[in-house]
């Protein structure tokens, strides 16, 4: 068996090994990695920095992969020399490992410009998982942070740190951001988007020195201008790690020189990835490196034949809400290139297509990257654009089924991981794949940059007979994301106001549909630690009462479990008299409704009632209807009244995707109709049935059994678990009865009452936190959110000429 040694445990090296394994080689494989981590997805580091992914989530090959493929992984070992005569690699401790074939996949490192002071403390680079952890350890609210470099990586690092609370400034040597991928106009649009996120951008700035006593205090520019900085991140480009090869006497220019078969100047040594130089070109984006990996796998397994040719690079900025895509050549002065351009400053959208010989030659997409796939397809396949000239800027949507069906099996779907249409179809049939998750796991497609996800989904839908769509409903046209995605965005990007969400991710205006939905989402996620914007609320939630047909309001005080007292009843009667309230009515929810109250009287009515808001006007916890249970009823077997009161106490003042009604009954006779409530407890001798998703309104639906438990405390906890789960996963305006049908009881049980203790605790902790920060809305009687909320504005003076 021959010994194959791979120096480098990064994406290119391991991808190459994966391809080698597919060819069932007769190799004993050893991989040396100077990082202590298993192979992870370096492209995703900015998402780890921003908190959108955990370090575990970006692992590409776990320890088990190395083990099951009989690969010796020597992690945290740096190879410092190659003895070509003895055919060994030597590590820093002088230990030698023999090879028959050697692959150098040493990658690249951050280019550190020769500026005085770059060695100071708190000056970082951003290249590895360890770099990321180091930055995370430093990041804190208000930390003055400067990122040197306005390229892809610099901007992603800047956003990540800003999300962590740092005050970030990006400085860049060039006149515009991402100048290698964008033209000046595109760069300007990008700059505006970045600034709108709250990141300062200074262009062009040449850094002359970093100053500070031991640790960095700031930067001095060539102009003499200074900028304060407590943390500096250098993202000024990369340089191939070619030193090892150079010392070994291999041919090296900027990178390790390889030919079309990925061979170096030594017939037993090969190179792949960012350390290479092919036909004078070095590499920094992942897609061509996966091509290299495939080619090298053939060469090294004695299937020499496939050749590598560098394809048009494509780059996508991974900052949510800042859509930037660039591919191919963007040099508009190239002879024979025509430019087709579109821009809409109000939308922040800019598209530029470079066309040569009626073929798409390059593109810049800013703000609107919807059609990226169609364009990439045109470019890769060299589509003749002559018949499409009128539709270039807004290509007609291609029918999903057809588009995928039309592709040849050899067409690459996932450029990052080099997965072809045929590979995906094969995997779907072979493994019975029905979900995107399974597809990703099996084929790796769409696991790197994720831009081909929709294409994979279409293919899956077309091919898999039992395709399971992950149901996603878009909120509205103003913010064109699904609820799930929006929740993710708002959480990860730490958005704290409706206007912020609309400005960054939407059309800035919002409407009567998305504004209340976003208000709910912010309240649910941040439990009050957000900017409450009453203008985004429906009138009921501005004045905490239900608007009536004549513009007056209805007032329903909280009456827990439907239990009141003579004293409360007297106050209600007095209030009705004092404010000439035209109707006092008993509701179907065992409460009392005062109808026809004028807006200006609301705070006075609340004060005189001295009762809490019953939230009868909002999408939130309404009430718990109870029967008298064991206290008085001769059939009662459980104390439904006090249990109901306790349940109401635990959940009152909280908001839900839609109204949330509850009922607790002391025996299966069900007098308080618990089985047609969003959450109900049905008392039995010695146990409670906890039921959810019942309805007796527009829909009538018998609730489903969530769980049967022995004690009242267990029942309360089960109710709380479901309640919080619905709050977090329900779509706005989705009643619990639609929610349980959408998700299915099995999933709900698994993720609530049958979840692990840890998951249950997390749900309950989040509920408790929200509860602690919630308050009775009617306390605004003394401190209204706006001074003129309830007060009629009086004209200062009459007619003036």
């Amino acid at each position: 068996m021959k010994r194959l040694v791979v120096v480098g445990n990064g994406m290119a090296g391991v991808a190459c090994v994966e391809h080698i394994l597919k060819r069932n080689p007769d190799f004993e494989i050893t991989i040396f990695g100077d990082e202590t981590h298993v192979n992870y997805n370096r492209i995703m580091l900015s998402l780890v920095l921003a908190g959108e992914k955990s370090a575990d989530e970006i692992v590409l090959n776990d320890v088990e992969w190395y083990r099951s493929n009989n690969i010796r992984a020597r992690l945290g070992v740096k190879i410092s020399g190659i003895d070509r005569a003895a055919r060994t690699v030597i590590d820093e401790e002088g230990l030698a490992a023999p090879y028959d074939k050697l692959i150098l996949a040493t990658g690249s490192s951050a280019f550190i410009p020769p500026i005085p002071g770059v060695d100071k403390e708190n000056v970082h680079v951003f290249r590895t998982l360890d770099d990321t952890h180091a930055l995370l350890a430093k990041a804190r609210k208000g930390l003055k942070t400067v990122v040197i470099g306005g390229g892809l990586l610099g901007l992603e690092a800047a956003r990540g740190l800003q999300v962590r609370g740092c005050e970030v400034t990006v400085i860049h040597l060039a006149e515009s951001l991402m100048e290698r991928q964008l033209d000046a106009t595109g760069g300007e649009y990008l700059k505006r988007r970045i600034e709108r996120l709250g990141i300062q951008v200074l262009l062009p700035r040449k850094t002359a020195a970093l100053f500070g006593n031991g640790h960095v205090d700031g930067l001095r520019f060539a102009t003499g201008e200074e900028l304060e900085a407590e943390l500096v991140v250098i993202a000024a480009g990369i340089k191939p790690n070619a030193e090892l090869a150079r010392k070994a006497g291999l041919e090296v220019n900027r990178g390790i020189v390889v030919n079309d078969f990925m061979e170096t100047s030594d017939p037993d040594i090969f190179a792949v990835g960012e350390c290479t130089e092919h036909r004078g070109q070095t590499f920094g984006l992942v897609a061509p490196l996966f091509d290299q990996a495939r080619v090298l796998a053939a060469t090294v397994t004695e299937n020499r034949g496939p050749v590598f040719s560098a394809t048009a690079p494509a780059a996508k900025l991974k900052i949510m809400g800042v859509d930037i895509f660039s591919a191919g050549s963007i040099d508009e002065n190239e002879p024979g290139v025509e430019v087709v351009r579109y821009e809409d400053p109000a939308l922040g959208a800019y598209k530029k297509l470079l066309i040569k010989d009626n073929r798409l030659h390059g593109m810049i997409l800013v703000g609107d990257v919807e059609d990226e796939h169609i364009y990439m397809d045109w470019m890769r396949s060299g589509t003749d654009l002559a018949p499409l000239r009128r539709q270039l800027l807004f290509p007609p949507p291609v029918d999903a089924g057809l588009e995928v069906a039309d592709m040849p099996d050899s067409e690459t779907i996932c450029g990052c991981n080099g997965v072809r249409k045929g590979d995906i179809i094969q995997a779907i049939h072979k493994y019975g794949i029905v979900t995107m998750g399974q597809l990703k796991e099996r084929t790796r497609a769409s696991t790197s940059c994720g831009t081909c996800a929709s294409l994979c989904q279409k293919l899956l839908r077309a091919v898999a007979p039992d395709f399971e769509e992950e149901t996603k409903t878009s909120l509205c046209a103003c913010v064109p994301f699904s609820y799930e995605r929006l929740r993710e965005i708002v959480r990860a990007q730490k958005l704290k106001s409706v206007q912020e969400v609309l400005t960054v991710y939407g059309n800035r205006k919002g409407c009567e549909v998305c504004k209340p939905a976003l208000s709910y989402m912010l309240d649910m996620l941040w439990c009050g630690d957000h900017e409450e914007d009453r203008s985004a609320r429906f009138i009921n939630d501005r004045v905490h009462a239900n608007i009536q047909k004549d513009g007056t309001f209805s007032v329903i005080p909280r009456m827990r479990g439907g239990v009141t007292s003579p004293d409360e009843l007297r106050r209600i009667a007095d209030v009705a008299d004092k404010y000439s309230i035209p109707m006092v009515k008993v509701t179907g929810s065992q409460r009392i409704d005062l109808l026809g109250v004028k807006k200006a009287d609301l705070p006075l009515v609340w004060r005189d009632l001295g009762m809490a808001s019953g939230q009868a006007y909002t999408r939130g916890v309404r009430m718990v209807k109870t029967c008298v249970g064991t206290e008085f009823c001769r059939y009662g077997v459980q104390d439904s009244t006090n249990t109901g009161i306790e349940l109401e106490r635990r959940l009152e003042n909280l908001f839900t995707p839609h109204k949330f009604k509850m009922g607790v009954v002391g025996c299966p006779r069900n007098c308080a109709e618990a089985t047609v409530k969003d959450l109900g407890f049905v008392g039995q001798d010695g146990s409670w049935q906890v039921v959810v998703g019942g309805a007796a309104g527009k829909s009538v639906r018998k609730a489903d059994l969530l769980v049967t438990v022995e004690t009242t405390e267990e029942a309360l906890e089960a109710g709380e678990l479901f309640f919080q789960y619905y709050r977090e996963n329900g779509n706005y305006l989705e009643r619990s009865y639609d929610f349980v049908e959408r998700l299915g009881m099995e999933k709900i049980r698994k993720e609530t009452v049958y979840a692990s203790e840890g998951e249950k605790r997390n749900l309950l902790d989040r509920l408790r936190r929200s509860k602690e920060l919630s308050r009775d809305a009617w306390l605004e009687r003394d401190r209204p959110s706006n001074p003129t909320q309830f007060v009629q504005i009086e004209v200062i003076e009459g007619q003036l000429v």
Partner: protein
Amino acid sequence: MTSQRVWTKITHVENIPPREGRPVRIGNLEIAIFNLNGRFLTIENACPHKGGPLCDGIVTGTSVVCPLHGRHFDLETGMPVRASEPSCLAVFPTRVENGIIFVDIDL
């Protein structure tokens, strides 16, 4: 000849929060003044559909949505946003001077 405008001095701009409306009664007329992030627009306060208080509606861009049945009106022109809801509203010229809102009510 320029027509003579009769401006009524209404209230301080701070009294109308951004993206909200407030009702003001002048004689028998009730108007709703909206603050579109510093720009103030005035319409009559009653929705032509069923008299809903438009001042209580959610503002979206430069239009308002009636809180009762969701009719949609442009605050600049008083015109309905949807063609299927054909009635329109009176609008009143509005200006701001030294932080005070003036509305031209031609009674």
